[in-house]
């Protein structure tokens, strides 16, 4: 413990040099901007800006990239809240309540709680990273295919809380997402599935294209229609600042989100996205007023925003303690480290303590910087809301298209996004939730492949699942999550009939 603190002080010494403070600031600024732009997520943004690190000192380079990573996590929530347009895949969940808050004139508090929650989560996440990182990493190593499958099943069971009033419609959305995940090349066999002769589909569906198309485009379509028929209205801003009451209400959500996000982040898989979905669902399940979620409940913003920041910390653990990149972002960091001449390995802490501790210390710094940067910006972002919609909508589309185009430089992706937008439009009209589609798309691959791998290893024997205590625990959780609301609602329903 004392050792760790010594290291941390050493790290602060490195992080607080003028040049590194400068890099942290630039990283955070650019990261926030990238996060705000719909479509370009942290991995893409970091990859784009790696050239900026050429010739830099390794520590500075990593500090810069980490700043971008963090900033992008913060920034992604801005457009989600203001425009119902997810800045990146993990921000999809923030759209659910954040945008509803904005429509009620509470954009300010929504943005503020996102920033504050992210800050608290990030800070706690870094502390957790320092102290329980290595043992947690060893635990994560125990996750073989069977455990991963049960984790994915647990993740999918969350759909029950995303489904709103109709579970069947939620399931339809989920299965749609899972189906979309199966389109393309099947990795184990090399067989190409469900392309129906369309070459573009061989690559499968990219999450960004789907998120932008399904959410952003459909949002603009619906809002334009409302505008046209005179039904569009955005309630005037009632308050810019967070009230103490809001903050106190959200603390629980923030803390829960932090811990959920951190532990999910350590595990291999789609860390940020899964973390934000999971924390939102858990928050909703355990809330006394689940019906408020989706209508502008501040905890529905606080929990996922905290979760995805702490997931960012958790995701760094496998990289720093074992040299294993467990997510797209950490893979980019891995590449960046290689480029500055450092090979991540289980001995990274020993061989390059300056890089590791400098990074950790700069994360504290980055957290503070982002809070300072973002809170004043809340007022600015909210002003943007007052742009007349007839300009705002097309501009949002034009910018979103850049995000989509940036994925593959294929204008066919834009057409695809448009078609998905039409799909999203109809889904919204008929009350089919959109979020489960993203959940299915993100988890579908891992779900199917882990199941097949597990059965391949066991030779078709299902015992591999019940021999793993981790898997059993997660299956039980999944079952509990699906059954619990029915028991609660049945109890309430009976009470209502009797009164």
């Amino acid at each position, binding site marked *: 413990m004392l050792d760790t603190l010594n290291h941390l002080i050493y790290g602060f010494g490195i992080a607080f040099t003028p040049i590194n403070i400068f890099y942290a600031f630039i990283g955070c600024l650019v990261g926030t901007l990238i996060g705000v732009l719909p479509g*370009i997520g942290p991995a893409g943004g970091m990859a*784009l*800006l790696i*050239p900026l690190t050429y010739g830099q000192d390794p520590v500075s380079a990593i500090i810069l990239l980490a700043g971008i990573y963090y900033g992008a996590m913060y920034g992604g929530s801005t457009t989600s809240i203001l425009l119902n347009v997810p800045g990146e895949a993990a921000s999809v969940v923030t759209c659910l309540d954040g945008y509803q808050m904005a429509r009620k004139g509470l954009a300010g508090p929504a943005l503020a709680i996102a920033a504050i929650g992210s800050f608290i989560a990030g800070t706690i996440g870094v502390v957790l990273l320092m102290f329980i990182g290595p043992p947690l990493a060893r635990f994560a190593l125990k996750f073989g295919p069977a455990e991963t499958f049960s984790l994915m099943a647990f993740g999918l069971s969350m759909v029950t809380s995303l489904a709103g*009033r*109709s579970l*069947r*419609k939620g*399931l*339809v959305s989920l*299965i*749609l997402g899972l*189906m979309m995940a*199966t389109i393309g090349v*099947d990795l*184990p*066999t090399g067989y190409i*599935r*469900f392309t*129906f002769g369309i070459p573009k589909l061989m690559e499968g569906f990219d999450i960004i294209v789907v998120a932008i198309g399904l959410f952003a*485009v459909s949002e*603009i*379509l619906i809002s*334009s*229609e409302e*505008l*046209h028929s005179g039904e569009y209205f955005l309630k005037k801003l009632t308050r810019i600042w967070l009230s103490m009451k809001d903050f106190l209400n959200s603390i629980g959500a923030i803390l829960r989100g932090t811990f959920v996000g951190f532990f999910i982040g350590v595990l291999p898989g789609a860390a940020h996205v899964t973390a934000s979905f999971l924390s939102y669902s858990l928050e909703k399940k355990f809330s006394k007023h689940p019906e408020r979620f989706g209508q502008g409940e501040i905890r529905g913003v606080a929990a996922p925003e905290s979760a995805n920041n702490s997931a960012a910390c958790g995701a760094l653990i496998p990289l720093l303690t074992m040299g294993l990149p467990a997510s797209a972002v950490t893979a980019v960091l891995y590449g960046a480290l290689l480029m500055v001449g450092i090979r991540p390995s289980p001995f990274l802490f020993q061989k390059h303590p300056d890089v590791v501790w400098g990074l950790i210390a700069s994360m504290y710094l980055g957290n503070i910087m982002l809070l300072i940067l973002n809170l004043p910006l809340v007022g600015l972002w909210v002003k943007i809301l007052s742009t*007349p919609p*007839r*300009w705002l*909508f*097309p*501009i949002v*589309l*034009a*910018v979103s*298209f*850049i995000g989509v*185009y940036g994925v593959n*430089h294929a*204008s066919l*992706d*834009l*057409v695809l996004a*448009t*078609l998905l*937008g*039409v799909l999203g*439009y*109809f889904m919204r*009209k*008929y*009350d*089919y939730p959109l979020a489960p589609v993203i959940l299915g798309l993100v988890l579908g691959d891992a779900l*199917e492949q882990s*199941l*097949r791998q597990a*059965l*391949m290893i066991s030779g*078709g024997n299902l015992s591999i699942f019940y021999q793993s205590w981790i898997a059993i625990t997660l299956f039980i959780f999944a079952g509990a999550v699906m059954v619990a609301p029915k028991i609660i609602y049945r109890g309430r329903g009976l009470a209502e009939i009797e009164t």
Partner: protein
Amino acid sequence: MIKGEDIVALVIIAIGTVYLVAAISMPSMSIGDPLGQRAFPIILGAIMMLLGLSIFFKPELESKPVLSRKKLFYTLIITGLLGCYGWSLDLVGYPLGTFLFLVITVRLLGEKSWFLNVPLSAGLSTALYLLFTRILDISLPLGIIER
């Protein structure tokens, strides 16, 4: 009177059926992989069909009166504009394509002043292009302007 909700349910059944049929017609041999590439899709297709049937025969209690032909037409126009914009982007280039898209769409959404519309759209398209290509280093096509 066929309700919109029913049509949606039928579409769901159709999607499930098509997917299921495509899944079943995949070859099933795969070495060492007990499930193969068919199993998961077959399950998904079957569930989708069942859900569709369930929703068709036991629809949800609330169904909002939803689409008017006029609204749909309007949405279709915007979709068409967006589709053209996306499809022609490589050809026409980002600055020009965005300019055209903005001018037309903004007018469609209610901007009456061409005096404001044209210069602002041009300015925004150029600004966006420069912002992303110069500052953020994301390459966007120039299209016709290049030639």
